Every structure is written in structure tokens, then in C-alpha cells.
């Protein structure tokens, strides 16, 4: 982790509460994320980790709390706004566009930057055509970065799981995000695939300076790659700090060992 300098707070979540009907998914949660850091969210199943990411990029709207992103105070996010502000995301159960090729999937990540209108696209003239080429160039760079050249024309539905996860990451990277939310990027992978994925995540963080918020179950990985860790359990925050602090926190230990609450 050389050459990387952790900056100021970029994303600050204050007293976030979210419930569905009577189910309280998140209760009064606060934590912050600093520029260029790798921030992990951990916790047992059903702790509210994915809900937390969904709040950050506007899929869910919390009933209470405040989100401060790059100095702007908001009640909640909206997906389009979040995307425009540079928040990208991958999904736990791969949410790729399965009827489209790898290339097209990654190209969709560029949609906010493509400005030509419908008529130009229909006639394939001028800006529309130029744009396609420019963005293809950028997408090819990402394809090279993630080493998926050989499958660029394959429909994503036909790819094995590990590669689909990589395409999911590629699509998020195509947005050139400031903040990248990763929802269990290594779930269900074998050791080699995990190592590859770790390498990609660290490279993204290192080379592009992208801030990373990561949910992961593999504690070894989390403790290795993250700068700070926040721990959720049953929708509540029970720990926050650098990996060593969290590891020593008795509440965290009991949550993970399933001791009585």
C-alpha cells in the first residue's frame, strides 16, 4: 500500500435508521469513510450490511439520519444522484445484464458520460459514433486491467461465477467512481480467485485512488486489506476501528462466536 495517502472524510453517515414495516434493518448507525481508504463493513448474516450499502447509493431511503457526501448534507440519496456524484457498486448476487455481452455490460457503466441524442444514435452519425469509439477505448483499458480480454464478446449468462464477479467489478469501474461499494466481492470463490480479486481491489485503490467500502465475510481478507473496519450486528453498530482494535473488541468476538447477548 505504497504511495497512497488517506485524505479527509469523504462520506459521513449520521444516525441512519431504516426499517421495512416492523423490521428494523438499521438502527441509529453512524460511521465515516475517508478519501482513498479501504473501509470494511463486517457482521453476521442479516446484520444489515447490504442495507447499509443500499442506503449509501440510494436504493433504500432511511427513515432517519443524514448522509454527508463531499460536504453536501442530504436526508437520503437517490440512485441517479449517487451515480452522478461518483458512487459505484457491485452486488452480492451478481446483478449483471444477463442478455448482453461482457463488452455491452461494461459499456453501460459509461452511460452517464454519453451525451449524444436519440436521432444521432439512430443515424449513427457525428457525436454518437465518436462517443461509441471513445468510450470503447476506455472500456478496453478496464478489460485489460481486469484481464478479461478473451471473454469480451461472450454473453455474461454463459460465464462461470468467478468471471461474472469480475465483470460486475468492471462495470462499476467503467463509471470511474470516486467511491466504490463492493458487496461481498469474494463470496463463493476459491483461494486463487480470491487472491486475484484482492489484487484487483488493492490495485484499484492504489492506482486510481478510489475509496473502497467493502462487505466481506472472509476475516483473513478483511483484516489484511482494510484500513478501518465497522462491525454491525442485528442492525446496530458494535465496533469501529482499525483491524487490530476490532479484533480485540469483546462485543465483536461474542457476536461472531454466537455467545448470548
Amino acid at each position, binding site marked *: 500500500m505504497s504511495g497512497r495517502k488517506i485524505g479527509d472524510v469523504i462520506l459521513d453517515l449520521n444516525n441512519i435508521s431504516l426499517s421495512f414495516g416492523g423490521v428494523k434493518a438499521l438502527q441509529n448507525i453512524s460511521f465515516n469513510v475517508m478519501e482513498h481508504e479501504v473501509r470494511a463493513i463486517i457482521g453476521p448474516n442479516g446484520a444489515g450490511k447490504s442495507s447499509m450499502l443500499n442506503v449509501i447509493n440510494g436504493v433504500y431511503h432511511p427513515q432517519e439520519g443524514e448522509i454527508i457526501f463531499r460536504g453536501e448534507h442530504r436526508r437520503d440519496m437517490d440512485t441517479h444522484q449517487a451515480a452522478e456524484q461518483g458512487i459505484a457498486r457491485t452486488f*452480492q448476487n451478481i*446483478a449483471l445484464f444477463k442478455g448482453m455481452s461482457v463488452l455491452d455490460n461494461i459499456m453501460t457503466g459509461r452511460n452517464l458520460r454519453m451525451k449524444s441524442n436519440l436521432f444521432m444514435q439512430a443515424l449513427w452519425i457525428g457525436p454518437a459514433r465518436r462517443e461509441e469509439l471513445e468510450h470503447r477505448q476506455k472500456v478496453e483499458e478496464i478489460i485489460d486491467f481486469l484481464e478479461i480480454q478473451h471473454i469480451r464478446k461472450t454473453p455474461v449468462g454463459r460465464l462461470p461465477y468467478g468471471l461474472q464477479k469480475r465483470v460486475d467489478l468492471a462495470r462499476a469501474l467503467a463509471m470511474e467512481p470516486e467511491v466504490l461499494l463492493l458487496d461481498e466481492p469474494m463470496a463463493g470463490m476459491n483461494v486463487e480467485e480470491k487472491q486475484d480479486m484482492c489484487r484487483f481491489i488493492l490495485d484499484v485503490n492504489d492506482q486510481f485512488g478510489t475509496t473502497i467500502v467493502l462487505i466481506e465475510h472472509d476475516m483473513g481478507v478483511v483484516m489484511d486489506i482494510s484500513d478501518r473496519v465497522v462491525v454491525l450486528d442485528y442492525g446496530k453498530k458494535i465496533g469501529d476501528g482499525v483491524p487490530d482494535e476490532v479484533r480485540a473488541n469483546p462485543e465483536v468476538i461474542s457476536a461472531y462466536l454466537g455467545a448470548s447477548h
Partner: protein
Amino acid sequence: MSFFIETLLGGLMTGMLYSLVALGFVLIYKASGVFNFAQGAMVLFAALAMARFAEWIPGWLGIESLFLANLIAIVITVGIMFVVAWLVERLALRHLVNQNEATLLMATLGITYVLDGVGQTLFGSDIYKIDVGMPKDPVIMFEALFQGGVLINKEDFIAAAIAAILVAALTLFFQKTPTGRALRAVADDHQAALSVGIPLDRIWVIVWCVAGITALVAGIIWGSKLGVQFSLSTVALRALPVVILGGLTSVPGAIIGGLIIGVGEKISEVYLGPYVGGGIEIWFAYMLALVFLLFRPQGLFGEKIIDRV
């Protein structure tokens, strides 16, 4: 005032028939996730079979009694609807498990064509009548309340009673019998139902068969009122807004939705129709359902869908 009440009651009667057809939709959708466009064709098919057998049987068996002839015709038609259900499951549905909604919808449209074709080839394509001995004479009611009273057909009353009995019977069937419970289990989760040993194929045959019987009841009531003819097949299209209003998965929704649409249609046609040129009842029902959808996408009683990411 009495004219308004008559319109209202007329609307309720039509609405009840819509409810019966909508009930067929809901039953099949709940158990198999198939939106059965062929429900209307099944109404026509059942009504045609019923009308023609009731006509042929006295000649074949030398029975004089109208009641007996009708009874035998009904039994035969129920048998035929069972065969239809079995064939649909065997030849179509079984091979279409896990297809997307649009494909399934189109498949039932295909079944609609087949049923229309077969029905008319076997039973003819003229207008036939069903006479189950329902009294046609009107009665005047509520004379004490309004001047001149309210004019009502006895036939409509009996029809309403039959429909109510059918609904009650279905409710009992779903709540009390093991098969009914299995049906509800399948509706909740196909795979879970399979894993506890509920045979999916048999359930589908049963549910199509039940839908066939509701089609027969609707066909008999409608047919004895207006005659059995091809236009019966389009009743499916008129009952669609009902399902939307009531929610695709709700039996009470189908019934209440049917009544709302029936009344809404009649009242709009009588009071609004003359100003805009008449004939508005079809699209009015759809617009009603559409406006409703915008505010409550899951229908009156449908289950709310929450997206998980």
C-alpha cells in the same frame, strides 16, 4: 331513485359474472404463476358443450325431463373440462415450467385459439340457448320504499345465489381439504411444495379443472341469459380489469373487484355515456383499473412486492 337502484343492481349482476371469470384467473395464477388468457375460451367451450349436450341427450337417451337432461349434460361437461385440464397440463404447461411471464401468457393465448377452434368444430358455431329452468319473469321489489318499486329479474337473483354458493364452496375447499391446502402451498412456493412431496403436475390438473368448473358455472349463467355464442370468449378481456383491481392473487379481491367494475361500468354507461357517444363501458373499466394501478400497483388485496438487492 328507483332507476338508480335498478342500474346499481344490474351492475352488481354483471359484476358477479365478472367475478366468476376473474376467480378462474386468480385460481390458476395463484397455483402456477400462469396468467390464463384462455379463461374466456374455457367459458365459451364449457357453455357450448353444456348447451349442445342438453340438446342432444333427450334424443339419444329418450329422456323427457329437462332437469335430468341438464344434469347429465353438466356431468358430461365437467368430465370434458377435466380432460381439457389434463391435456393442457400434459401437452403445454408441463413443458413450459420456468418460462417467463410473456411466454406463458402467449402460450395461453395459443390455448385460447385451440379451444375456440375445437369447441366450434365439435359443437358448432351458431347461437345456442341454455335452459336450466330459471324463471325469467321480473318481480317488483321495494315498493314500500320507492314509488313504483324496483324491477328485478328473478333469474338474476338465482344466478347471484349460485355464484355465492360457488364462492363459499371454493373457500371451504381451499381452507378445509388437504388438496386445498396443498394448492395454497404450491401458490406460496413451488419448490418448497415439491420438497415436501406435493405433486406439482397433479395440483395443476386440479386447479385447471376447478377453473374449468367456474368457467362452466359462468357459462351456464351467462348463456341462459344471453345465449351461447362466440362473443362469450371475449368475456376474458372484460374481466381483466377486475383482476387488476382486486389483485392477481386474491380470491376476495376477484369478487369485490368484479362487483366494483360491474357497477362502475353500468353507472358510467348510463350517466356518462350519453354525453360522449356511448359504448364507453369497456374502456371505462380499464381506465378505472389503470388509475387505480397508479396509486396501488399491487391491487386492492394483492401482496406488496418488495425488491431485494
